[in-house]
């Protein structure tokens, strides 16, 4: 006689409904719902982002094919592309100053033609509300980003000054169809028509200007063009092809995405721990049922199916609630990050939902599976001999299965098996270290609690702390697990607070007062002396003027750069974009040689005039010139370069081979112009170049700034403070988004507490029943329970503070190059906040225990 699936389904569902009264089932439900909520929140968000990026790839890229270089494209190339069937549109990107009356502001210029945009529409307010139009600004007018309009206090119809010309504000751009990236993206957008470009006189030799040629057409055309595109790449043109180079997010967002995924999985992991804890109690409670059913004739298979189905219903119900929570939270996440998202996102899809359900089931199987097997192994004889409990699942088996399943989830979510394995193994090692650390800390706190005075005025509190400490000590392993869960959560929250508040301001505060706060770029050679003269009176801490030439690395040791460098450096920006090159006789201030010798020591006889020499050499050999170069140490390390290696640069139409003759260490925080590659004098002078410098101006010297903007309209002034404000804003929003996820991590931590409390309920009931029999009042019991959780919270806070302090010290040393310092507030806020928060939650969750009469509590042992 066996149970049909339908009957089993009904039976298990009925059993579950009856079981909902039990605390362990509720704890299981909450933990599973949280796991689903955390994973679907991240899932919905990333899925929408991903589908948005895929669907709008051509639009985001600006076309199906985008070519970019530092000088205009020639007519021959245009003709070839048009003949192949592409519709072409020209675009120029650069940074320049724009001013209106007394206000001036660097802006990221986007110069478009009549064919703009090739895909999508521009959301623009031209005075009659935001509308979507399929064109850019007309000649004579500019469209501003809302922020730029605000900074300049510009209104539609105002005339703004741009280089040598004045243009009318014709609209405010809410959203562009194509995303822009790079240096300019910190500055607000100004869009203008290309017919106005020449009159501004902004484009000069050596200016930082990107010329783009955008093409739209069917994919087959791109296939036909493949050899041409490959040749262009070799010639140093940056080629973006919609199928190969799907546009991504900015690096801050990409990093945030990774943090979100990891934080989400941390919540899943904690929920898994809660599931494991509540399952133990669930199984203990159902051993009698299982034995009785065995006695009445149920087979092992039927028992497995019965309890398996019961938990399946529970997981499905938890998935529904979790998915709703996840859906709501991803909307919150989106609201925080929407300003940084370059696109309109499609509505949430179904995939993350299935992924959420799958996650819940995996967590259930992984964290509850081995423990659940006990139910099936129960002997029918237990009905006669109560002591006949099946052996508990081996702790190693539980950890191994849970690790395996969690590793699988890591793989699924990261899509990278190596990373998943690394995280898993690293996590396990970290767990062992933290376990040891937590054990020491908890031991210390408990010893302190045990030493509290036994009499005196504070005896009431001391007694509660002593008894509470003793209760924690009795459940040491479970307590330690909870301690780690909370400590890691507190640590993560403290790091967020530190990164957002402390790190940036500490770094700023340690900069000398005279640190340059302005960069001036695009200074033309003929303006050089006048510019220096304007600065000499006012600016202190001025750096030298460095000439700047744009060039691209097109070969390393005569091989294609991508083939010559280590695999992880293939996507390095230094290989994808043009580099700013300079020349210099002496080692720049703040630079330090770490290998090789500087140019003047190599050519003692005739320092300087390399050009004469290479010119005479190139007269005998038609091959490219070969000169010594100095390379920044970090770049050399990334690209795997050493002394004697050669880099081939394409500058304009010329090729120059540089042989690495020295490596330099430099201080990127100095706010001076820094260069990856420096040439000796006499090589680059013949190419078009502009100058860059950095200087310090006080707020009181605004007149000097105005003078510079007025006298040198083609020069762009970049204010470091404004850039830092932008960074802070971005950081603040991204960290807030991570906080949304951390709330789930904290909730998952609370679910661990709830599960642990549930698992220890019978023992706790027994203990408090006995205490009552011995004369303890409700007040004392309440205090003891409060004290137990407060000690747990205190210890978690201490450990969280310790971890945060260590991590902060590492960041200070590695990133900011500063001596680590103590953050006293961490040591106050985390332990006290932890004690209050965990004390209150524990107190609340255990209130039922205090309501029971001693007889009930004592009789409760072994039952719900």
């Amino acid at each position, binding site marked *: 006689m066996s149970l049909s699936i339908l009957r089993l389904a009904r*039976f298990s569902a009925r059993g579950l409904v009856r079981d909902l009264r039990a605390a362990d089932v509720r704890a299981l439900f909450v933990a599973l719902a949280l796991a689903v909520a955390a994973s679907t929140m991240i899932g919905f968000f990333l899925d929408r982002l991903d589908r948005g990026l895929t669907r709008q790839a051509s639009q985001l890229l600006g076309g199906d094919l985008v070519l970019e270089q530092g000088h205009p494209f020639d007519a021959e190339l245009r003709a070839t592309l048009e003949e192949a069937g592409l519709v072409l549109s020209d675009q120029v990107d650069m940074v320049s100053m724009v001013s209106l009356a007394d206000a001036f502001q660097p802006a990221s210029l986007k110069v478009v033609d009549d064919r703009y945009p090739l895909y999508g529409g521009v959301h623009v307010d031209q005075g009659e509300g935001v509308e979507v139009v399929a064109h850019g600004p007309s000649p004579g007018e500019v469209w501003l980003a809302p922020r730029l309009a605000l900074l300049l206090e510009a209104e539609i119809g105002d005339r703004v000054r741009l280089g040598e010309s004045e243009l009318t504000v014709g609209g405010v751009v809410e959203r562009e169809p194509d995303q822009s990236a790079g240096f300019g993206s910190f500055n607000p957008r100004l869009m203008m028509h290309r017919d106005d470009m020449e009159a501004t006189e902004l484009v000069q030799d050596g200016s930082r200007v990107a010329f783009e040629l955008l093409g739209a057409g069917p994919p087959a055309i791109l296939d036909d063009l493949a050899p041409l595109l490959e040749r262009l790449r070799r010639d140093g043109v940056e080629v973006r092809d919609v199928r190969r180079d799907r546009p991504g997010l900015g690096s801050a967002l990409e990093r945030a995405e990774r943090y979100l995924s990891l934080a989400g999985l941390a919540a899943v992991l904690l929920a898994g721990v809660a599931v494991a804890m509540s399952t133990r109690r669930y199984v203990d409670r159902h051993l009698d049922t299982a034995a009785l059913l065995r006695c009445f*004739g149920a*087979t092992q*298979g039927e028992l497995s199916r019965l309890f398996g189905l019961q938990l399946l219903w529970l997981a499905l119900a938890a998935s529904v609630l979790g998915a709703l929570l996840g859906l709501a939270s991803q909307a919150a996440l989106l609201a925080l990050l929407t300003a940084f998202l370059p696109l309109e996102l499609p509505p949430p899809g179904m995939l993350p939902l299935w992924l959420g359900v799958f996650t819940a089931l995996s967590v259930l199987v992984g964290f509850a599976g081995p423990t659940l097997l006990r139910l099936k192994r129960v002997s029918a004889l237990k009905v*006669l001999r109560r002591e006949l409990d099946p052996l508990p699942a081996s702790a190693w088996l539980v950890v191994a299965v849970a690790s395996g399943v969690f590793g699988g989830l890591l793989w699924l979510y990261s899509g990278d098996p190596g990373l998943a394995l690394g995280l898993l193994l690293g996590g396990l090692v970290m767990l062992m270290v933290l376990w040891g650390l937590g054990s020491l800390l908890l031991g210390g706190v408990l010893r302190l609690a045990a030493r509290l005075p036994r009499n005196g005025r504070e005896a009431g509190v001391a007694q509660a702390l002593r008894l509470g400490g003793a209760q924690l000590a009795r459940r040491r392993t479970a307590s330690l697990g909870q301690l780690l869960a909370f400590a890691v959560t507190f640590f993560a929250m403290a790091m967020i607070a530190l990164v957002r508040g402390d790190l940036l301001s500490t770094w700023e505060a340690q900069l000398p007062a005279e640190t340059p706060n302005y960069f001036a770029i695009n200074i033309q050679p003929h303006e050089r002396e006048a510019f220096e003269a304007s600065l000499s009176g006012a600016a202190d801490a001025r750096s030298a003027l460095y000439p700047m030439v744009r060039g691209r690395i097109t070969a390393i040791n005569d091989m294609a750069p991508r083939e010559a460098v280590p695999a992880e450096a293939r996507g390095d920006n230094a290989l994808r974009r043009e580099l700013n090159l300079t020349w210099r006789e002496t080692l720049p201030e703040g630079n330090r040689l770490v290998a090789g010798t500087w140019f003047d020591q190599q050519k003692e006889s005739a320092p300087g005039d390399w050009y004469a020499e290479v010119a005479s050499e190139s007269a005998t050999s038609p091959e490219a010139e070969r000169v010594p170069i100095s390379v920044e140490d970090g770049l050399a390390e990334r690209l795997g370069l050493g002394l004697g290696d050669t880099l081939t640069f394409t500058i304009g139409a010329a090729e120059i081979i540089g042989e690495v003759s020295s490596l330099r260490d430099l201080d990127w925080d100095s706010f001076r112009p820094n260069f990856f590659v420096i040439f000796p004098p006499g090589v680059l002078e013949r190419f078009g170049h502009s100058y860059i410098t950095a200087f310090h101006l006080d707020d009181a010297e605004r007149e000097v700034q105005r003078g510079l903007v007025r006298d040198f309209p083609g020069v762009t002034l970049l204010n470091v403070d404004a850039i830092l404000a932008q960074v802070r804003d971005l950081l603040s929003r991204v960290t807030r988004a991570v906080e949304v996820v951390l709330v789930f991590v904290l909730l998952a931590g609370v679910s661990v507490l709830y599960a642990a409390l549930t698992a220890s309920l019978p023992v706790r009931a027994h203990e408090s029943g006995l205490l009552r029999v011995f004369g303890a009042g409700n007040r004392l019991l309440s205090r003891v329970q409060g004290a137990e959780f407060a000690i747990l919270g205190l210890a978690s806070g201490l450990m969280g503070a310790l971890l945060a302090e260590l991590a902060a010290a590492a960041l200070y040393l590695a990133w900011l190059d500063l001596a680590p310092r103590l953050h006293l507030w961490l040591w106050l806020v985390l332990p006290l906040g932890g004690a209050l928060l965990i004390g209150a939650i524990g107190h609340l969750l255990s209130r039922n225990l205090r309501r029971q009469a001693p007889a009930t509590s004592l009789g409760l042992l072994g039952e*719900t």
Partner: protein
Amino acid sequence: MTPILHAEHLIKQVRSGERRLTILSDLAISVFPGETVAILGQSGAGKSTLLGLLAGLDLPTGGELAMFGQRLADLDEDGRARLRAGRVGFVFQNFQLLPTLTALENVLLPLELSPRTDSEQRAREWLARVGLGERLDHLPKQLSGGEQQRVALARAFVTGAELVFADEPTGNLDPATGERIIDALFSLNREAGTTLVLVTHDHALARRCDRCLRLDHGRLEEMALDEVGA
């Protein structure tokens, strides 16, 4: 007539540290359909061990044992469970009611394992028969010991079991309540024509059975009914 329960040369040994303890040795018993059989013995004589073996909840160390004509040694644990399903009922000393289930749900429990369309109706009827028709939705903790044992009686008979095992059914009850439970047990047994195997140390209870066996030093001896009164 074929015995419903038959054992020969039954041996049960357990390991206690290094030593082997023999609890049952060369034990024989035959129980025929419709019989009521009491197994008497001192505390620790191995009565519950014997009951566990006879019901197929445990396996003997040696000897032959058959239930419903089927050799239990030929069946694995699941096979023995299937043999019991719907055909064997149990009454325990500590009632073994599930604390989270109501009286009705407790009685329904064995019916979940044997397909019937009228399960609930049947469970209600049997609870009414034991006088608990009004207490269907009560949880065990809301019932007295005697009432809990009556729920257990209803649960033992509700499947139409051919064979009911009772392990010290009055062990946890006061004499007057115990008396009423015994009355109920025998009256239900008569109505249903069930075979009853009863393990007890209560002679008054044993006397009401057709046959009495004494478990002593691991073996069963038939007792004359007048001997039981002693």
